[in-house]
């Protein structure tokens, strides 16, 4: 594997061939926010939170899936990058149900943490909210897709780690939805109790049945970085 030199935020750094911009940055202690990406899963480039500025590129590029190339000049926190990330988070919050106070995962929610880090306030967009009935027929898992941000981590975790292929994506655009079969509530016939997807969900959309409320116990509700 060859060595590749890149410049990130003005410093010359080296990485190895095949490494993504995100990996190269992380290896050098530079923190780039991510939502849809997890190192255990194949990247999909869906949330766009991880975008960075690369000299010579017309648009920003997704750092979780773009490999570094020799001489690449990268800015991970330029004003353009930060403004764009803020708008994306604002968009995700705008259609989100918004009841963090009622959410059992509020303290561990990654969307909430990123929103706090980027200092995103109340969204200015008046878009409709996604409301779906809570799916609680399974003895193992509760799905509250009203809180889903369509990062598809559950889909990939199930496909790639458990290899059970329980989830799929249906509908288009704003109506896209993580579904089971032909959009049926998840039940014990399709999903055994493995918990893999739950541990990958960045929001309160997926949770365990009996342990609901666990995360919140004894902790104050704070928004922190």
């Amino acid at each position: 594997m060859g060595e590749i030199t890149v410049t990130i935020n003005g410093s010359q750094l080296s990485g190895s061939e095949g490494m993504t911009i995100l990996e190269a940055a992380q290896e050098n202690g530079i923190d780039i926010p991510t939502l849809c990406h997890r190192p255990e899963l194949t990247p999909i480039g869906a949330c766009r939170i991880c975008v960075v500025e690369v000299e010579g590129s017309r648009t920003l590029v997704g750092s979780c899936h773009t490999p570094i190339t020799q001489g690449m000049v990268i800015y991970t926190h330029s004003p353009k990058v930060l403004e764009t990330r803020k708008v994306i988070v604002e968009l995700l919050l705008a259609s989100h149900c918004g009841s963090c106070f009622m959410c059992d995962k509020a303290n561990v929610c990654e969307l909430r943490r990123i929103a706090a880090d980027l200092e995103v306030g109340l969204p200015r967009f008046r878009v409709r909210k996604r409301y779906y009935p809570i799916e609680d027929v399974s003895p193992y898992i509760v799905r509250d897709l009203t809180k889903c941000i369509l990062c598809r981590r559950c889909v990939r975790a199930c496909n790639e780690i458990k290899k059970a292929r329980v989830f799929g994506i249906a509908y288009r655009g704003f109506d896209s939805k993580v579904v089971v079969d032909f959009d049926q509530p998840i039940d014990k016939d399709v999903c055994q109790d493995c918990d893999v997807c739950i541990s990958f969900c960045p929001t309160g959309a997926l949770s365990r049945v009996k342990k609901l409320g666990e995360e919140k116990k004894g902790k104050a509700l704070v928004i922190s970085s």
Partner: protein
Amino acid sequence: MPEKWIVLRNCGVIDPKRITTYLDRDGFKALKKALAEMPPEQIIEEIKVSGLRGRGGAGFPCGLKWELARKAQGDEKYVICNADEGEVGTFKDRYILERDPFTLIEAMAIAGYAIGAKRGYIYLRAEYHHLLDLLGKAISQAREKGFLDHFEIAIHEGAGSYICGEESALMESIEGKRGEVRYRPPFPPSRGLWGKPTIINNVETLMNIPQVILNGAHWFNQIGTERSKGTKVFSVSGDVKKPGVYELVLGSQLRELVMDLALAEKVKIIQVGGATGRIIPYDMIDTPLSFETILGAGAITVFDESRDIIDIVHRTIEFLAEECCGKCAPCREGTEVMAEILERFSCGEGVERDIGVLEELSNAMMLSSLCGLGQAAPNPVVDSLQYFRSAYESRIRKN
């Protein structure tokens, strides 16, 4: 600059059901010449020198794309003809396919030989189902005549999605998956259909190939402007007396096309390049049509003084929100937000702050969306805010 027929030279002249009528018009001579006299590298060099650029909207240099695929490692390679023609207001590929399927087949066979592919696909728009039979028969006739011994062509029908015209979603669709965009790199010439090196070209791009091979790159290179060589086929529709398909030398004036050929009157707004294209006011009708200025896939939609700009932009964004694949957040959420804001403006319920919000949102979507749809979706909003800002301002709700 004049009308000129390179792409449409056989349209209305040959019988699309009979290969012999095509053979009488130098049909398959370019393929014979390529196979007999030109090594693949020379064909690619010729296309590169010709300056031919993609006609599907992005204008990527055709020869360079082929060269990348030729040089890429792969036991299999593929040629795809993009006949999805989903862009709003385009119908030139249909016009071509209906009248001259043979030139396309010849071009694909040349492309296959040039990049080292044995198989090609025509991805046919679902609504063009009526062309399946004609295209299938044209392919069989070419096979019977022995022109496709080195290359096999299959037709793959779309299922009615705009995003499946986008090259990576199109390949997902051929693979039998949900029509969604892939991130790039890797680009199709290195990893495309089923992970193999693939070139994907628009119908019109390919239609130029046989003529370039027969007449030479320098002949083609003489036509057009500095960075836009050859002709462009335009689909003109809307408030014009003579809507239809016109082929003009690149660099021709928009005025010539819209006013002199299509006979428009009292023009107010022109949308060039369909839903993701640019919107310009009548004042700019002297703009030349080229890759350097405005072009897209050549959809020209004309709106006269009776039309309302907000209405046009609102409908355009509603279309894009509907057709967005839903994979990436900025486009999936952003198009919906834009549609909500524009809907309010269209009924006089705009809010002062909305204009700034639209601008900020446009910027973020252009910079961060995963594919061309989300990146270009703000175009109609940005352009109308630039040229027709007062229309927005007059729709702000007065308390």
